[in-house]
């Protein structure tokens, strides 16, 4: 769906820009009828169920580290009813872009990690698992906090890293071992693992398994944060704990927040 078609589908919205997206649908930036800056996602037919799931999850969650649901509903496009989701536009930069450009301020990593963990705590309080935590789905706000976007649905969106099929939604390079095995009943500990990989990348500047992300599937343990990384031992140890292979050994999100409280600048 292009911008003009989207405008026809949502005449009450002032859509200004199409944002590159993947197979799951079309994404646009614009303004909602109430004047809120929003990102609107119109979910393609085969992804409708996931769109509904994201709406259900976002309706339950109110947290500064989770993108806020502004509106949702359905549009008719070429005779087909498609769900749409409007979330608040989050000012800041995508963490992936910052890492690739080398502009991420490592000294803010504890705040980024702690704020994202706090968001995970709020998600899990509703028994929801994000399942696709990665730099691409993280916005770094101007004050250094993290905001998670694309809750639950954008799992198979990313094509820049190796993405597994519909049977195991998520991005392989950031998946917990249990998620990669295709386990159905994941918990927040799976998101904690993904956050650990994201955090490692943020403080080290590289993915823990480099370009060979499939090695994660065979690894008996994730690499430790190197001693020369620009972070305190507390942060390094916490990242290591987050990437433990056994979920029970990983900290709960609230443990991460508590452990990093003294590290936040």
């Amino acid at each position, binding site marked *: 769906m292009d911008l003009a078609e989207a405008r026809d589908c949502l005449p009450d919205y002032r859509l200004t820009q199409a944002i590159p997206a993947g197979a799951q649908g079309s994404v646009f930036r614009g303004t909602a009828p109430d004047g809120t800056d929003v990102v609107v996602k119109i979910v393609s037919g085969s992804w409708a169920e996931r769109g509904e799931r994201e709406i259900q999850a976002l309706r339950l969650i109110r947290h500064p580290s989770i993108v806020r649901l502004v509106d949702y509903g359905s549009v008719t496009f070429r005779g087909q009813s498609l769900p749409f989701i409007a979330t608040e536009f989050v000012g800041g930069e995508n963490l992936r872009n910052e890492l690739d450009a080398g502009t991420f301020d490592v000294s803010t990593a504890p705040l980024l990690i702690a704020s994202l963990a706090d968001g995970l705590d709020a998600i899990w309080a509703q028994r929801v698992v994000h399942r696709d935590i990665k730099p691409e789905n993280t916005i770094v706000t101007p004050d250094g906090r993290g905001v998670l976007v694309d809750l639950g649905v954008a799992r198979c969106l990313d094509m820049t890293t190796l993405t597994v099929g519909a049977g195991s939604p998520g991005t392989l390079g950031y998946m917990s071992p249990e998620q990669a095995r295709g386990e159905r009943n994941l918990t927040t500990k799976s998101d904690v693992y993904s956050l650990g990989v994201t955090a490692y990348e943020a403080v080290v500047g590289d993915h823990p398994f480099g370009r060979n992300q499939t090695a994660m599937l065979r690894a008996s343990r994730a690499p430790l944060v190197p001693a020369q990384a620009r972070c305190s031992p507390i942060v390094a140890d916490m990242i290591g704990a987050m990437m433990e292979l056994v979920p029970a050994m990983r900290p709960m999100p*609230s443990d991460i927040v508590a452990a990093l409280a003294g590290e936040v600048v």
Partner: protein
Amino acid sequence: MFLYNSMWAWNLPASTAPHGVVLHAVGCPLENAESRQAPTSRDRFILFDPDSYLWELDSETCGRAVKCLESYPWIPTMVERTALPSMTDEQVAAILGAAADWQKTRGVSRIILPTPLISESDQSVDEFLRWLDTAISVAAGLSPQSLIAVGVSEVAIRRHFDTILDHLTARRELPGIYIFAETSRSSGSVAVNQDVARMLLMASHFVGQRLGREVVVNFADTFGLACLAVGAAAFAGGYERKCRRLNFENFEERDGGGAFPKFFALGTTAYYRPEKDLQRIRDARLLRLLEGDRTASSAALFEALKAGGSARDVPTWRESRNNVAAAKAHLIERLCGATDELVALRPGPDRIAWVLEWLQNAELNVTYLGTRFEDAPLDDDGRHVRAWRASFESFIDEFELVV
């Protein structure tokens, strides 16, 4: 704590003093249970197991047990059982509430909230997780504190336990757990499956020690001591087979009389017949291997054997049917003593070292006794200790627990 599985006897013998008891619904029909005086939690730790994991017992072969179970309000009827997955959360909460309310009237120290047994590897854990979350909600308003039952069949552990443990440790509101393995598809008097041992150790360590929740292990026999060392608060066991491991066959009604007395030796983790085994051990000058297992209840037996006499000379240890009071009292004394010794140690390395020494020595003793009695083996060859020791060692290696 060592808790005695008082399966059939509602009241404990006055002479014995375990740290606590676990009463079972399967052991006594509701009307009898309500008319009897229950032990009080003032002087003992009292649990009442709703035994909902026995829902699947066959009423044809286990008539007495099923009759007891079905007298309790939280045991669904056969029709309801087949509809378990379609029960609403409110119906599940009502079952849990009924189990909790009744336990409160009996003055228990903790309330056990039942959940469905995870009995097959190809079974989904969705239903268990639904009960878990409902039980957590019910537990929030309960006093005394609750323990949520977690029962997994030995054949389902490998497939499901990591997921279950993940969910247990990811729920801050979890009050505590009462965990056991169902081992009906194995033979022997104790559970020797290494998956079972690992599951119990993992639960004890991650839920007990790391999460700080109360973990009570049942049906693990003396392997419960190993669970205590890594984080469990208590373990339950007993004398009869049905109290030592959870095997559905043990609830079948068979012809035959009562049990014979058996002498429990922690030094070998085995049970010996006083006349048939202990006298032979004495004759081989190996009674010293069991000297550490002498208790007040078995002192007369030891004296008789050392004096060259026979267990027949000690009426309470004579090998006759149902003459088991002294053997039971000895077991309780021995396990309470061992538990006291273990928990007096510093949590962590010292307790782990105690268990390692116990299991390694027991394996050594069992191996030597096996060599000496190769031609006519003892009643209990104690071979399970090798699996227990291996499981414990691989657990402390896997999780780098310092000794």
